[in-house]
């Protein structure tokens, strides 16, 4: 059973040394938890102090060399094999350190710029994505067009060396803090098909004519906006790819966003929820007068979640083995977003149920178990089952593209 590693892959010893180095660095540099509550993910950054804290942490990680490790050095990266970044990411999860705030930049705007951007665009945008100096947001969804993204109606009209934007984007995560937006807008309303005539922009959103209205989430938190464009002017050279070919750029972006393509700068995007934490919770909580961990139903469900969590981790390991993915090479990567987000939702709902008569308490109640965090985790879990394309849309895509079933 010999597995020949690709030539430039570092040896297991190099990896082990590196892992130890990262572990030590994290021990020494992990920020002390602040007095205020941190958000569950980059989508719920709703307060200035949360943002400042997270931005400082991203900068620190970047300066230590642990972000964008596989991005080329000329764009601020470290030019090393992706495997190094995977080690960093897993160590960050293990150490429970805060996530990176500039997720849209690191995970999908950046990779798509890397893939399709001009040299000028790459040099202009990528380094500041990594350092967190310039925050990115995403203007895809509109009030009337969510899942049916290609039907977007926000317009961009060329005027000299500028485009003039009009329309409304919504659910803009990090919209308040962002300097740039990856924006899908219609440049040619008469192109014949909804997929044509769209253009993809790297739009500045700190310009005149852009109005940002924060929207409160069901948890009570903030973190996304409605973004209105009222004759906002942006430079024409911020088009990414070809004018009128925005749909294919958007699809490429979504592949990065959903983890179906690799090339992300790395880092965590949200607070990891682990089965081991829920097992711990089951030890703390009592149901019907006995520790929840002793309840036979609870025990069986915990085992079920543990199997599923293990399967996710092993899927990632198998995804890197060609022989074991040859039949449908993209299957695992394409189903990641669906399986991770739905798992997180079910796991956190189950965790809440372990609190029994105390489960109805929420953040702010002095007697809420673990500060009502699991209740918040559960509600915020929908951000990933809806955002980035809903679970239903993911199932359509997998059914149609992978299994070859007809479109509805």
């Amino acid at each position, binding site marked *: *059973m*010999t*597995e020949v590693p690709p030539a430039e892959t570092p040896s297991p010893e190099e990896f082990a040394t590196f892992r130890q180095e990262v572990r030590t660095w994290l021990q020494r540099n992990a920020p002390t938890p602040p007095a205020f509550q941190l958000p569950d993910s980059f989508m719920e950054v709703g307060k200035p102090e949360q943002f400042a804290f997270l931005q400082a942490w991203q900068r620190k990680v970047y300066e230590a060399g642990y972000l964008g490790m596989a991005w080329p050095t000329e764009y601020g990266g470290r030019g090393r094999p992706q495997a190094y970044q995977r080690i960093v990411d*897993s160590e960050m*999860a*293990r150490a429970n350190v805060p996530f990176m705030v500039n997720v849209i930049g690191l995970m999908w705007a950046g990779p798509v710029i890397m893939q399709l951007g001009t040299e000028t665009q790459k040099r202009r945008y990528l380094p500041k994505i990594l350092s967190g100096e310039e925050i990115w947001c995403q203007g895809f969804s509109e009030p009337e067009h969510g899942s049916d993204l290609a039907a977007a109606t926000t317009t961009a009209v060329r005027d000299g060396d500028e485009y003039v934007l009009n329309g409304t984007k919504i659910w803009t995560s990090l919209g308040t803090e962002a300097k740039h937006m990856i924006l899908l807008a219609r440049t040619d309303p008469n192109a014949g098909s909804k997929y044509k005539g769209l253009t993809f922009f790297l739009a500045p959103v700190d310009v005149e004519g852009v109005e940002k209205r924060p929207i409160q989430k069901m948890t009570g938190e903030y973190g996304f906006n409605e973004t209105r464009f009222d004759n906002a002017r942006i430079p024409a050279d911020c088009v990414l790819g070809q004018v009128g070919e925005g749909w294919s750029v958007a699809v490429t972006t979504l592949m990065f966003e959903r983890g179906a393509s690799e090339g992300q700068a790395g880092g965590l995007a949200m607070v990891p929820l*682990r*089965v*081991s934490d829920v*097992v711990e919770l*089951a030890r703390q909580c009592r149901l019907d007068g006995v520790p929840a*961990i002793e309840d036979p139903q609870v*025990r*069986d469900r*915990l*085992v*079920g979640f*543990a*199997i*599923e*969590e*293990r*399967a*996710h*981790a*092993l*899927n*990632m*390991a*198998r995804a890197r*083995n060609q*022989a*074991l993915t040859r039949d449908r090479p993209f*299957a*695992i990567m394409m*189903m990641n977003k*669906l*399986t991770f987000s739905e798992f997180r939702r079910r796991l956190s709902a189950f965790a809440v149920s372990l609190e029994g008569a105390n489960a109805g308490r929420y953040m702010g109640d002095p007697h809420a178990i673990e500060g009502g965090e699991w209740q918040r985790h559960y509600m915020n879990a929908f951000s990933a089952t809806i955002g980035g394309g809903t679970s*239903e849309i993911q*199932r*359509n895509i*997998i*059914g*149609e593209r*992978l*299994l*070859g*079933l*007809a*479109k*509805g």
Partner: protein
Amino acid sequence: MTATEESTEIRFGEDLDLLAKSASDVMRDRCTLEAVRASAATDTGYDEALLAQIAELGFLGAALPERYGGAGLPAAALVAMAEPMGRYLYSGPFVASTLAGQLLAYIDDPISQQTYLPQLARGELLASPALYEPDGSYDPLAIVTTASRDAAGLLLSGIKTGVLDAANVGLLLVSALCDGEPAVVAVQRTSLPDGSITRETLIDETRRSYRIVFDDTPAVRIGGDATQGLRFVHQLGALMMAADMSGGTIGSIDLTIDYLQTRTQFGRPIGSYQALKHPMVDIFVASEHGRSLLYHAATVFDGESRASECAVRMAKAHCGSTFTHAADRSIQFHGAIGFTYECHAQLFLRRAQWAEYQFGDTRHHRRNLQALLL
């Protein structure tokens, strides 16, 4: 239990890949669903020519030690072969004989190894472990059958059930209590009087298992640590059955998808309806998870360690529940044709319903995982 700390190793090198491909090729050519039905209609339940071909390809000795004529591959090789076999609903004494051979190779008794392993590796001798008893326990150490000493040697008495392919093998490796301790004894099938082996009627018509009544049957004790050996073979059985079921799931999915693509109602392929499409995707996702759990279990299998036990139990529990569900939905998604004997969907459902209850069902493994994980 910290999942992040546990190994996620999946080793599946070129040699295993070639073996899996070769198994897959043979099965695709020779084990069509029509051939499966034809074999099922025979008394022995298998195609002798195909078994000979499998032996020729070295499948029966793949994971036996080289010094006994095997190829010396790790246990993962068994998964590499068993999964494609399950995919094509293959049946026959491959599983039984492999388990018996592995049991012999595991419990350290050089004399019986020398006697049997070279023949087993070549397929000249077939064997089967006889482990389970009428009370239906999955515990390989819950033994009532006894081997008592007499002047000539050991005499075996008791009843074994679910003995795979017993009527078609030469050697039976039987678990028994000897002086109150678990033991493994060898019985020559031909030494059993007529009527001691009766065929069981199984929901899976492609499989064969038998009930054996031992009544002062002469037996020879196999040396070595029988308790460990029985645990080992039980766990390996679960691993091979998980592979069979993972393969069966893939076969069932392929069959169902084909129907969803071709059958039209209301002017559209039925696969365009999300009420069918989305559950199909969920089954596919579960199948992919099952494969990852399976290949990892195959990688870490040793029949002893906690990691091995944990991985095998997870794989069997998950692949089992996934296959039974996939096969169940396959019937429904075929409509009335799916309810017929003629439709191949039933073959998968019957295989799933049988295999789920071999070497520990989902409930059993999940229950045992509690102690390992919580």
